[in-house]
């Protein structure tokens, strides 16, 4: 009971637990557990022969947090910033530290601009975006979409319809916009 000094009794004794659960108590002694993040100074544990690594060449002005003194010696080169989203990203990195909400909100905003721009650009390529294959929605038919949800009190069922709206609204908006543009152009041609 929490209202008295004693610890509540456990449903099973250590002996019963040891008999029931493979390995029970194997790491009972904290010394057997890898200790991180309790800091233990060990400067060269794995194979590094440097104190400061050789620097990776910078092939374009690599964006970095202003909390860093300089560009780190190694960095990713996955997707260099480009276009409007790239300009927003560069501004967010140049102007705001990680401690500022503006830094992160600008980056989230740039992500949305990037998505929209990339989708539009894809229509000018031989590999346009395809909402059917890219959302993986076909898995609903191959992996028991209805049976996986029916008769269960899954908390996520409350918001899953919202996900559908979030995924499909740009496509619906683009469809409506396209339809209205085509209709307006055809009316002009008729005049």
């Amino acid at each position: 009971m929490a209202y008295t000094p004693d610890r509540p009794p456990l449903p099973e004794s250590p002996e019963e637990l040891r008999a029931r659960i493979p390995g029970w108590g194997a790491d009972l002694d904290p010394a057997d557990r890898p200790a991180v993040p309790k800091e233990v100074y060990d400067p060269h544990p794995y194979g590094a022969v440097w104190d400061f690594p050789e620097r990776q060449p910078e092939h374009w002005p690599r964006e970095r947090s202003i909390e860093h003194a300089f560009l780190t010696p190694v960095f990713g080169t996955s997707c260099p910033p480009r276009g409007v989203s790239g300009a927003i990203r560069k501004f967010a990195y140049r102007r705001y530290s990680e401690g500022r909400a503006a830094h992160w909100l600008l980056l989230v905003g740039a992500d949305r601009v990037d998505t929209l721009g990339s989708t539009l650009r894809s229509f000018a390529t031989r590999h346009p975006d395809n909402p059917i294959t890219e959302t993986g929605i076909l898995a609903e038919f191959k992996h028991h979409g209805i049976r996986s949800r029916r008769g269960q009190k899954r908390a996520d069922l409350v918001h899953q319809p919202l996900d559908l709206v979030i995924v499909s609204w740009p496509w619906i908006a683009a469809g409506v916009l396209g339809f209205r543009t085509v209709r307006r152009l055809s009316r002009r041609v008729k005049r």
Partner: protein
Amino acid sequence: MRAMVYRGPYRVRVEEKEAPRIEHPNDAIVRVTRAAICGSDLHLYHGMMPDTRVGMTFGHEFVGVVDQVGPSVRTLRPGDRVMVPFNIFCGTCYFCARGLYANCHNVNPNATAVGGIYGYSHTCGGYDGGQAEYVRVPFADVGPSVIPEWMDDDTAVLLTDAVATGYFGAQLGDITEGDVVVVFGAGPVGLTAAASAWLMGAGRVIVIDHLEYRLAKARSFAHAETYNFSEHADVVVLLKKLTDHRGADVAIDAVGAEADGNLLQHVTSAKLKLQGGSPIALNWAIDSVRKGGTVSVMGAYGPIFSAVKFGDAMNKGLTLRMNQCPVKRQWPRLFEHIRNGYLKPTELITHRVPLEHIAEGYHLFSAKLDGCIKPLIVPTAA
């Protein structure tokens, strides 16, 4: 090469992409033989993580065969079968020298609050991940390890994050003999945390989730007592009643961002991106642990602030411990536990998805269809 690429929230595809190349003398190029989709990849997939750029390849859980090495690599050779921890780390900066490999200061120019992670947005350094045929592995002398001969690729890939992180979560709880441990979330990480809690001497392990098939796995894989929070009006009251109105000694948040169970939190975080994650599981952990107890957090949260009940944590005198897992540090002990049969990671695998069908794999995992707990990705060249 063929690689998964991100096209925007809820959209990914496989396309032909330029193969990675050696960009630093200590790089290696690894041909991927197994990758996995991690629960935290879903945060990227859902557009939760700032600076996730269209065109990026995800995947921080992978194993493979060394294809090329840079001129300064000494410990690996082409043909070596390697497992690669999800953290990219230099091994010698101030933080690495103190064992904080997840917090390396030399690999992520985009942020100082988080280290470098494969395929995990530019916030984590802008490295492409392993859901592809090939991947660039920086600091090849430091991060990867040759897979022991007795270990198969399926076990090894789970050790690159999920199993190591689950064990780490239990370790962060500072469990002592007889502790009552409650684990929020019965995904691969939560399941491993629950199983690991017993190894550390827990007296009772309770797992909370809302998916019955995952709770069934928690009973079989982790020998845990389970409760579906959807069947109870208030999970905190439930846990207080279960623990003589005292609370658990240790609460482990193995959920992270996008926790379900509170629509308001979910909409403001996962949908409107106004929070770095829905902290509902974390708040349940804070409220259901006993005064003076420990809350362990290894569920992934974004860098934007979240509405966490910090006042309760302060007033209760809690110890909050958290970090990304320094994976490589966990491996020697985990190898022993696996060889002894105490942990059986491959029991977590429910699906194998060819790389070409990865969009369906993401949807399957995200929508929790077909009893999915852990999907592996198999590249064509594997």
